């Protein structure tokens, strides 16, 4: 059923939201899958290509935003599960050192 979308959503719980570094991590992870993978701030879109670093940085979603994902293709289920997991892990950002870096 490569024609139907796999969908999931996840709340941004990291302090900075979907800013520069999380955007890079999200697009890098998205690019590791062959399927089309898109993200949106609402369940009905508009959808943004999760593999485009420029488009993802323009999303600028803040902490508390729900990110919606949809994917279509052979590895769609694995791709959606992986990006939801990345958001859940707060993009592996060390928030204490981030605060420190900001001064």
């Amino acid at each position: 059923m490569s024609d139907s979308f796999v969908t999931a959503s996840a709340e941004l719980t990291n302090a900075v939201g979907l800013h520069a570094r999380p955007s890079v991590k999200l697009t890098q992870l998205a690019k590791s899958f062959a399927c089309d993978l898109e993200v949106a701030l609402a369940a009905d879109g508009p959808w943004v290509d999760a593999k485009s670093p420029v488009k993802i940085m323009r999303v600028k979603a803040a902490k508390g935003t729900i990110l919606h994902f949809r994917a279509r293709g052979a590895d769609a289920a694995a791709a959606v599960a992986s990006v939801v997991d990345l958001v859940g892990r707060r993009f592996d950002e060390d928030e204490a050192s981030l605060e420190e870096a900001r001064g």
Partner: protein
Amino acid sequence: MTNVGIVIVSHSAKVAEGAADMVRQMVGNSVRVAHTGGNSEGGLGTDVAAIMAAIDHAWSDAGVAILVDLGGAETNSEMAIEMLGADRRDRVVMCNAPIVEGAVIAATEASGGSPLDLVKRAAEELSPEA
């Protein structure tokens, strides 16, 4: 290295170094990044030989994308590409994009294994459409 490499050419050694630091910290080490800036007296400027050395440092068979700041950085980079020789110059491109943001975006695109034309296009997507 199979991913496209990134070269940062600024008039300022500090800008070049700082932009390269941002790329390494944000994108990781799956992409080779080289930077050059300033003249031999420690002032502002760019140098063709130093740009050629940076291209060598960042070299990948997939090619190299160059990000520049102003005027001389662009013309000296063009000259450096010309002097590379026929076997390599076709695999080096200059991106029409802001130097810091363009370097991060180009490296992010390159880290996913994208070919040189897609890396260039991703960086140039930053600029408002003409």
